[in-house]
């Protein structure tokens, strides 16, 4: 009997949400909710009304009743009569239903933002959050209102938005970095701290590169879930396409799946992805290859060979760059070899990407042209310095010549003067 009654209320709730009034475009509703709520002494009831003034929905002409129901023109408490569609503060799946009523309606959303996706609710129920909410009735999981701060929702491109790229990590971290809150789920809570040590966060926060990835770029936003072991590479290769393609064709790709370890994250970590360096490859101290290989096995030997090739290209590039810099600072014209050396730099960067094929042969194809260009540029620098030495040597010689000429002229003048004096005496 009780169960039947609860089910009846549930259907009533859904029916109420479905029939909440949709405001016409640009039509400002007559609302009396804020008039009372903003003046209430209880901040819990007053703050939402105050904040809502700047909410994107308020800006577009939506009012309180769009989500909470009720009778907007009614100035009395009767405005909040459930018979008039009032639902109060929605929780759990009701939040998703309320938001989805407009946001899943393609025809309706087209009027406001034709480019906005309308599958957020569908995606949400594929997420870990959505599945737990639906299947396990877990009320602690994130719903729409957990990330999009209710009553002060802004467009994601608005720097004040809780889902602006710069704020996504903190928004997710408000739950995921809270050890106490996350305790029942028995998952790590160091993701936010680790992410903030990563090159991705440094690029975003320090360099202002908003295209750098944050939580939702790898986990999905509405469909948030950890990437599966076999498809981590697909996620990373959304940006690191060349590395991802080379890795997917490499022997490691299959072996990693067989071993049950993720692709990119095994060497580069997942949240704490640090800036890479040539030290990551090889069999030396900081090399990640040694996590599986020894210096003696075939893979270890290949890793050492690849490290040696990369090192040699980098050293040859640095050597050529240094001599050209020295010649340039000495005033020599070395723009041609400097221009040529750009090819070697490109080769070095391509070689670093080519490491992800884990093939000495593939790497050699990138390294060899770079070595040739570096050697040619170095020869250009050497020639410029030889020319500099030649010029300096002959500058010294010409200085001696000029000095000798001055001395000779002085002596000649004196000789002419003494000859003049001699002829004057003879004349006298």
């Amino acid at each position: 009997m009780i169960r039947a009654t609860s089910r009846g209320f549930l259907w009533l709730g859904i029916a109420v949400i479905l029939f909440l009034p949709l405001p016409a475009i640009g039509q400002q509703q007559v609302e009396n909710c804020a008039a009372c709520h903003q003046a209430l002494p209880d901040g819990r009831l007053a703050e939402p009304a105050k904040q809502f003034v700047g909410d994107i929905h308020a800006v577009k002409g939506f009012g309180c009743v769009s989500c909470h129901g009720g009778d907007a023109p009614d100035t009395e408490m009767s405005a909040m009569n459930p018979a008039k569609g009032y639902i109060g503060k929605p929780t759990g799946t009701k939040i998703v239903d309320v938001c989805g009523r407009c946001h899943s309606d393609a025809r309706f959303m087209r009027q406001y933002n034709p480019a906005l996706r309308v599958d957020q609710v569908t995606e949400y129920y594929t997420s870990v959050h959505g599945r737990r909410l639906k299947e396990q009735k877990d009320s602690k999981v994130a719903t729409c209102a957990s990330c999009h701060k209710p009553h002060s929702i802004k467009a994601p491109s608005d720097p004040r938005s809780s889902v602006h790229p710069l704020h996504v990590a903190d928004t997710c971290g408000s739950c995921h970095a809270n050890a106490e809150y996350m305790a029942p789920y028995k998952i790590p809570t160091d993701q936010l701290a680790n992410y903030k040590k990563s090159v991705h966060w440094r690029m975003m926060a320090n360099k202002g590169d908003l295209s750098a990835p944050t939580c939702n770029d790898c986990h999905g936003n509405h469909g948030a879930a950890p990437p599966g072991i076999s498809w981590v590479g697909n996620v990373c290769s959304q940006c690191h396409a060349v590395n991802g393609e080379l890795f997917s064709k490499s022997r490691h790709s299959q072996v990693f799946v067989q071993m049950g370890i993720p692709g990119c994250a095994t060497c580069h970590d997942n949240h704490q992805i640090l800036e890479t360096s040539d030290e990551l490859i090889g069999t030396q101290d900081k090399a990640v290859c040694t996590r599986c290989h020894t210096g003696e096995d075939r893979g270890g030997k290949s890793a050492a060979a690849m490290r040696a090739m990369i090192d040699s290209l980098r050293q040859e590039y640095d050597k050529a760059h240094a001599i050209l810099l020295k010649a340039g600072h000495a005033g020599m014209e070395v723009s041609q070899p400097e221009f040529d050396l750009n090819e070697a730099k490109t080769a070095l960067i391509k070689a670093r990407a080519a490491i992800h094929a884990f093939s000495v042969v593939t790497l050699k194809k990138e390294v060899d042209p770079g070595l040739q260009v570096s050697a040619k540029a170095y020869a250009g620098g050497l020639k410029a310095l030889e020319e500099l030495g030649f010029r300096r040597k002959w500058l010294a010689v010409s200085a001696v010549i000029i000095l000798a000429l001055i001395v000779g002229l002085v002596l000649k003048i004196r000789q002419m003067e003494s000859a003049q004096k001699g002829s004057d005496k003879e004349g006298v």
Partner: protein
Amino acid sequence: MAEGMLKQFIERRNFLNWFLGTTAGAFVFSVLYPLSRYLTPPPVAESTARSVTLSLKPKEVKPNSGQIFRFGSQPGILVKTQAGELKAFSAACTHLACIVQYRSDISHIWCACHNGHFDLNGKNIEGPPPKALEEYAVNVRADQIVVSKKS
């Protein structure tokens, strides 16, 4: 005695004349040699910091093609769009400064290092490049293409 002094004087005078003649000749050579080196054109034309005249002629550049050129010590890329418009950009990718190239199959400027794509306004449209390529001004004067830095 007087004859000996006269002889010494004449020898000294001859030596001084020889010395003066030699040093004057060497001086003239030391002036003329650098002058001749200066007047001889270098094997490759130098470009100024702000503009470069390309060795290409406008008619030699085919539509939907791109070519790398030297702008000082840095690479530039000259692109002729399918509509026949000449455009030039810095060819150093804004990601890690690899030299970009023109992809006629997709009409994009493309960086092979990490698959960065730029449209024909130089705007980064795909991949890791964080910003657009610097665009240069292209002017066709008579039969020459002159590329200059803007502002």
